[in-house]
């Protein structure tokens, strides 16, 4: 077994819904509902799914920006949800995040130097001249000229702002970076620049990425392994080529067939799923996908399928994997 930098066991995050006169908890949104997976050192694990599947919440629970309801996230063997305040602060040096919206994730009242230098202040990593030098180095690393260190975020384009966000995450020299839709707010021609930058940085610094996105083409390009989420659960997890070429879960198959491909001559069989994703407040019984699944039978309504190996290192949760030829 390769060296696992992160181990996630039965991770759950339920958001309580309070109601009634006494504001008692009447129900909960099961945003993340029992995840089991490992992340290997130096790899990129893609996490895909539609809106509401819990992929962003997963990212935040992995970093303990949100507390888990149940389960554990082990970083190098230590459960981060059991750390005290002081240890949690030093964990922030190991695990960082890159955000989706480069407009919202930078404080508009701070200059680029202040933004990128903030983590250095927080963790007392550098001061004065040394800090200036480090900020320059970080900006250089993400392809921005340090001449603009005194500028404010609103003077930059989306792609440039995302580079600033990446520089900030790199300031503490982290091991793991959770990337929450890092390119989906960018123009098509800029996405490729940022993806290439992230790949270069990974090679250079030996980073481990958890790459959350809804764009399956981007995820295939950047990931080593991919996990597909549906209603708070991982329904399939495999090496990216295995997953894209021979999906073992009908949801993955439908998702892949739904992507519009920039090739007008390609004829494909499209699986159009009916209806919408059910509410995570009252997820369907048994296999949560049975309400939209073209292969569903009675057993799918009653019994939750086991998340198990369907091929070599290819996990999926489905009663009828065999039916997907």
């Amino acid at each position, binding site marked *: 077994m390769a060296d696992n930098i992160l181990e996630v066991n039965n991770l759950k995050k339920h958001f309580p819904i309070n109601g009634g006169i006494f504001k008692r908890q009447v129900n909960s949104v099961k945003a993340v509902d029992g995840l089991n997976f490992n992340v290997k050192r130096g790899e990129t694990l893609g996490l895909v799914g539609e809106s509401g599947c819990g992929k962003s919440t997963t990212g935040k629970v992995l970093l303990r920006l949100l507390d888990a309801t149940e389960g554990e996230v082990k970083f190098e063997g230590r459960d981060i949800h059991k750390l005290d305040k002081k240890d949690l602060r030093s964990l*922030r040096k190991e695990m960082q995040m890159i*955000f*989706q919206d480069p407009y919202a*994730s930078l*404080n508009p009242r701070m200059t680029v130097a202040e933004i990128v230098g*903030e983590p250095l202040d927080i963790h007392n990593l550098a001061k004065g001249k040394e800090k200036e030098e480090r900020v320059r180095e970080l900006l250089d690393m993400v392809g921005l000229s340090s001449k603009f260190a*005194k500028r404010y975020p*609103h003077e*930059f384009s989306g792609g440039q702002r995302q580079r600033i966000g990446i520089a900030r995450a790199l300031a503490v020299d982290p091991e793991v970076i959770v990337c929450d839709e890092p390119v989906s707010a960018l123009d098509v021609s800029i996405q490729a620049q940022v993806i290439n930058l992230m790949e270069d940085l990974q090679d250079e610094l030996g980073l481990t990425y958890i790459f959350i996105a809804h764009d399956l083409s981007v995820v295939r390009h950047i990931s080593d392994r991919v996990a597909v989420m549906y209603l708070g659960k991982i329904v399939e997890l495999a090496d990216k080529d295995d997953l894209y070429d021979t999906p073992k879960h009908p949801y993955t198959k439908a998702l892949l067939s739904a992507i519009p491909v920039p090739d007008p001559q390609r004829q494909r069989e499209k699986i159009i799923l009916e209806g919408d994703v059910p509410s995570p407040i009252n997820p369907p019984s048994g296999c949560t996908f049975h309400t939209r699944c073209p292969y569903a039978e009675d057993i799918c309504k009653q019994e939750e399928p086991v998340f198990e190996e369907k091929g070599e290192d290819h996990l999926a949760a489905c009663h009828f994997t065999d039916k997907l030829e």
Partner: protein
Amino acid sequence: MKAQVEEEQEIKQISEEAHSPWHEAWKRLKKNKLAMIGLGITTVLLIVAIFAPIIAPYNPRYAPVIEDGKVELSLQGPSWAHPFGTDKLGRDIFSRVVYGARISLMVGLITQGIALVLGITLGAIAGYYGGLIDEAVSYLIQVFLAFPFILFAIAIMAVFSEPGVDKVFLALGLISWPPLARIVRGQVMSIKEEEYIEAAQSLGASDFRIIVKHVIPNSLAPIIVTVTLGVAGAILAEAGLSFLGLGTQPPRPSWGVMLKTGQEYIRSYPYMIWFPGLAIMIAVMGINLLGDGLRDALDPKMKD
């Protein structure tokens, strides 16, 4: 690197010099004529207050002594020697109005200073932590806002056995914070949801740091507007209290006090009321114009 050179060119294209958000707001403010009038009036007010001893030709508290130990005639109309006339004790009204600016501005600034400390602290804590603290603070805000402002001030002043300008600071300061606290609370609650706050959390920043470095600088715009308008409100309230005899006490030359003493002569010597009245009106209008202008200029649609 070639790519980097190109990127530099691009940023140069966008702007020649660094523009802080404050700089942009100032540019917008400069375009607003009414706001600039307000700014002008406020500046004059400040200069008059600071340099009152130089500007005022006479002592505001005593009638000027002419020769032989005789004092200036009382109740003179406006003249070259006394542009606003003299009051019943022969004091120069112009000098009193000039010194009055000092009191008014001090009332405005000190009360808003107290309100600022109370309002930001309570509002920020309530908004950031939410829950029970928030409910308690919100309840307090509601209670304070339920009383009419001036009545509340009168009630507090009545508690003090001896009114005076120092008590006005305290009374008005103690009741001026709720609107500010409410605005800060709302701002903090919405800013708290911004992604850059989450980013700061993920960097390991403490709550204190997040509030001071991220939340407050971003809610400064509405705070500045509220405080500016609050200064005008406090000036008006001080004049009201003094007019009722509950505020600044004679012989201190507050505009409210001058109105009070002038009212006896309103029919025969109306100029005794005109000048302090006009001073209040212009000062309050000027500051309000500036406040409204700031509101437009600081509108946080800075993205484009």
